[in-house]
């Protein structure tokens, strides 16, 4: 199932710290190419519920006078919110990474990382990045076709600086997404079947990241409260930055919180890893 993790890393004469990770990245890309049809199907099937959600919103707006806003969204703005969520999600979602990490621990494949001068977190991060490269290119075709049909609702960043700030926040969202998945998968050191924890985490993420609906249509208190959790910085925040909906003090506070959560997630991941190793008994290897 996991061609990537069982593959021993070829011993190439590495010249620097980075070259070995660049190598992991390219091996990862080659291995993930196996999944390209899978990814294509996944992206195409994923558009079915997206279209359904858009139809549902259109039905809601249809009963109101034209131009009515729900929360602060007109119908066109609501549609463009969901379109951008789809795009950011294609860039950052974890595909198989958490299950692969759990399998690495279960079948003892992490042992080799304890013996080699290779950091497991950095190794998995490279594989995550290579997976994203392949997924995004596979998803490009169905998503582009869908976006073309919805092109009148697809808007550029509200402000020119959105072109810089939005990619930056997407990048941090990707890091945060990876670190959360990585840490949850590390629970395999303690529990037999980590998939329940993955699904529980994902349920909270689905709601609080803004995947289901934009968080600012919630009552204001609840919306403000959620912004202190890490989840909005996975989707809602990057999309809001792009659309120019988050501005001024909120923007800087958002970036501060996003960076803080990335740093915190990194420290937690490191901590869980070191505690997990104490529990680790290499099975097989």
């Amino acid at each position: 199932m996991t061609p990537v993790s069982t593959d021993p890393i070829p011993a190439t004469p590495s010249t620097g710290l980075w070259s070995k990770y660049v190598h992991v990245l390219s091996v990862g890309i080659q291995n993930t190419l196996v999944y390209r049809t899978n990814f294509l199907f996944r992206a195409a099937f994923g558009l079915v519920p997206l279209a359904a959600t858009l139809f549902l919103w259109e039905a809601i707006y249809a009963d109101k006078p034209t131009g009515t806003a729900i929360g602060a969204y007109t119908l066109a703005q609501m549609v463009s919110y969901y379109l951008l969520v789809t795009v950011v999600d294609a860039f950052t979602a974890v595909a198989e990474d958490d299950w692969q990490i759990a399998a690495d621990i279960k079948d003892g494949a992490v042992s080799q990382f304890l013996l080699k001068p290779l950091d497991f977190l950095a190794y998995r991060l490279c594989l995550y990045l290579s997976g994203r490269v392949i997924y995004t290119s596979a998803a490009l075709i169905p998503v582009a076709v869908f976006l073309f049909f919805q092109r009148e609702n697809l808007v550029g960043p509200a402000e020119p600086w959105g072109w810089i700030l939005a990619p930056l926040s997407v990048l941090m969202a990707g890091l945060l997404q990876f670190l959360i998945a990585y840490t949850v998968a590390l629970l395999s050191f303690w529990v037999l079947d980590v998939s329940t924890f993955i699904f529980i985490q994902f349920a909270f993420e689905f709601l609080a990241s803004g995947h289901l609906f934009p968080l600012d249509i919630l009552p204001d208190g609840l919306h403000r409260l959620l912004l202190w959790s890490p989840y909005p910085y996975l989707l809602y925040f990057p999309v809001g930055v792009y659309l120019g909906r988050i501005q001024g003090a909120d923007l800087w506070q958002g970036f501060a919180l996003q960076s803080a959560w990335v740093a915190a997630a990194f420290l937690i991941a490191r901590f869980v890893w070191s505690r997990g190793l104490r529990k680790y008994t290499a099975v097989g290897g």
Partner: protein
Amino acid sequence: MPSFSRYAGIYSALIRYSLIHEMQFKVNFLLWIVVEALWFGLQLAFMTVLYGHTDQIAGWSRWEVVLLVGCNQFIQQLFHTLFVTNLSNLSELIRKGTLDLLLLQPVNTRFLISVKKFEIGNIVNALMGLVVIAYALAQLGRVPTPAQWLGFVVVCLAGLSVHYSLMFLLACISFWTVRAQGIVWGYYNLFNIARLPAEAFPRGAYRAVFTWVLPMLLVSNVPAKLLAQRLASPWEWLALLGMAAACFVVSELFWRFSLRHYTSASA
């Protein structure tokens, strides 16, 4: 009917075995119930948020939609209890060649593949669906007659059969491509639209496909409308029964066709 009692005997043995297997991992068993309950809660939360901004969606009031989500949960969880694990396992059976063993058993192979594992935990989640249905009916002030409850059971079985036939059909693609897991899991995305009111979709290709090809917009909508007493005409439930029969026949034909293409993977 000796054949019926024989199959009933085999099925009860399979259920007993699944139970024993499940009880080895009690915490995990409970956690899966929690997972499914959380996702159910999520669907209800989504509808609550929507109805915070509107009184009706395509003619459906808040509690009618809750009823719909409950019906969908009930059918989907029964589907999980009986079939989902087994059907998503088919590609593994083919890849490892374990299917040979099942083909040689003196029992209908499709039966064995479909019902091997019984997921008892999902019954708890199906009951949660029923509770939500009852609560929504009380809020709507509707009391279905015994005949309507009977009709509800029939259309739920038809919806269950639609899900089963379609996922079985998709799983059979594994006879050609080994990595069909992605296609099978894609079916989960189709599930998602079954809990939405069919009237919210404009008349067009999308609604036609998901009514007459992959009848997702019938499986939960018809039972919910029946209980809410808002079926426009008997054609609605006849359409569901007809589509259920059609899907089953197509899946059986495709299964026989696939088997002829089976080349064993084991020695």
